[in-house]
């Protein structure tokens, strides 16, 4: 929302043309402002991470919050994902080629390249980003953030940096965990539904350095983007409980969009790089 009210012309009425312009411009401005704010928080986070003193206790707490407390959630969702993908792929492979030998190897490759980091990140964007925005947002509306600043503690230093470090580390760890979960669930589905031997299914021959690197760089990028977007939403709350609700919604939407966008960029780059290398 812009701070300035609609400009009025001489008659004190807003003209239809002006209204049209402002209705077109306002969302654009809003998006631009959000992106600018997110990059500001990102820059400040790096500044305080490199210059400020480390906060081990807070970081460990956040590692627990982001990592340990997401394990069950990731297990359930990625487990289902593994089963769904193998069902769909196995069904198609049976229909078209009738050959399931390559199913496991290709599945592992696809998990590494795309699904494990991205879907994990979507889940973290759901669970962790809303949590962060809600927590920081309610600190803003109860004036705790103002109190931090009055005690000469910078909110970004104090609140964002531990979350940033914890989420970046945990995103990589959880992505690896997600590969294991989804792959095991897939192996079980392949065994019970298509009678595919687990030994045939576990096939690492397709995996190369490229797949691992692509998956890890995605996980790292998501891990940095999600906490920044979520904390930005939390720090920009205004108004009471309504504002906190709005911030959590913004956090999950913006974080998910950031994940999808980064996925597109990194996948595209990966494709171009692979083309150059081979």
């Amino acid at each position: 929302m812009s701070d300035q009210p609609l400009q009025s012309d001489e008659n004190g009425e807003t003209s239809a043309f002006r209204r049209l312009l402002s209705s077109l411009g306002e969302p654009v401005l809003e998006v631009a402002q959000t992106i600018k704010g997110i990059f500001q928080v990102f820059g400040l986070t790096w500044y305080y991470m490199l210059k400020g003193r480390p906060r081990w206790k807070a970081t460990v707490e956040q590692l627990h919050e982001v990592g340990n407390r997401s394990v069950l959630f990731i297990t359930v969702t990625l487990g289902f994902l593994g089963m769904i993908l193998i069902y769909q792929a196995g069904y198609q492979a049976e229909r078209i080629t009738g050959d399931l030998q390559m199913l496991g190897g290709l599945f592992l490759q696809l998990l590494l390249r795309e699904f494990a980091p991205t879907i994990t990140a979507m889940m973290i964007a759901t669970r962790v980003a809303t949590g962060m925005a809600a927590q920081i947002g309610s600190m803003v509306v109860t004036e705790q953030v103002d109190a931090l600043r009055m005690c000469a503690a910078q909110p970004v230093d104090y609140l964002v940096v531990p979350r940033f470090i914890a989420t970046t580390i945990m995103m990589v760890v959880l992505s690896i965990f997600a590969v294991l979960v989804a792959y095991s669930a897939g192996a079980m589905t392949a065994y019970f539904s298509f009678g595919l031997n687990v030994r045939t299914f576990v096939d690492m021959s397709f995996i190369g350095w490229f797949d691992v690197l692509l998956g890890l760089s995605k996980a790292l990028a998501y891990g940095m983007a999600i906490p920044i977007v979520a904390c930005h939403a939390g720090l920009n709350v205004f108004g009471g409980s309504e504002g906190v609700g709005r911030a959590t919604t913004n956090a999950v939407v913006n974080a998910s969009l950031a994940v999808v966008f980064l996925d597109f960029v990194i996948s595209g780059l990966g494709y171009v790089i692979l083309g150059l290398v081979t």
Partner: protein
Amino acid sequence: MIRVENISKRHEGRMVLKDVSMDIAEGANIGLIGPGGGGKSLILKIICGLVTPDSGNVFIDDIDVHSLGPTELADLRFRIGMLFQNYALFDFMNCADNIAFPLRQEGTHSEEEIAEAVHQALHDISLPDIGHLYPNELSGGMKKRVSFARAVIRRPPIVFYDDPTAGLDPVTSSKIFILLRKIQTELGVTSVTISHDIGGIKEICDRFVLLDQGKIIFEGDRDEIEASEIPIVKKFWHGFSDDELNV
């Protein structure tokens, strides 16, 4: 000591403060009164540099608050204590850590000194045994007192109280005002108190400012406000009005 010059602030398309100027002399105890939404809390936040005004300047000891960088602003804030309206106690720390937080941030005190100071502070607010409790385990009055202890733990020369008795029963309110009185006589602070409790601030303040719809309507000492003929001042000070039915 504190000079506020021509502050204007717009919030969500509405002018909350319109060209407000005031002077707060060293050692003065200002009572800031006025109807809700009149911009009282906002003025305090602008003075501390928590909110940037659209126009105007704030000087504390001739330092322009809004021209400072983060580090200098932090140094300035070491000299200001603030009691927030919603307690603003950190809910992820227990009370002792909350009170110790400003001292820890300064980074120049040893842990023993801090522990001693916290012990003394808890004793001063007559809640000696609640150091290990978390804010959500306390009643409203206790939270206010802990928040008060945190605000003055550094012995700041300037203290702001944003509605110190909001939502408290009369007995607890009077306890809070006794505390405020005590800190004033002990430290000789400069203070600004926002309150709707006229009986309470009559006791602790020597100058009064009435703010309505973003403008200062009245400014003066106790005798002047007693004698004022401005209707809204009378309404606030004496708690009644002649045109009650027309409001």
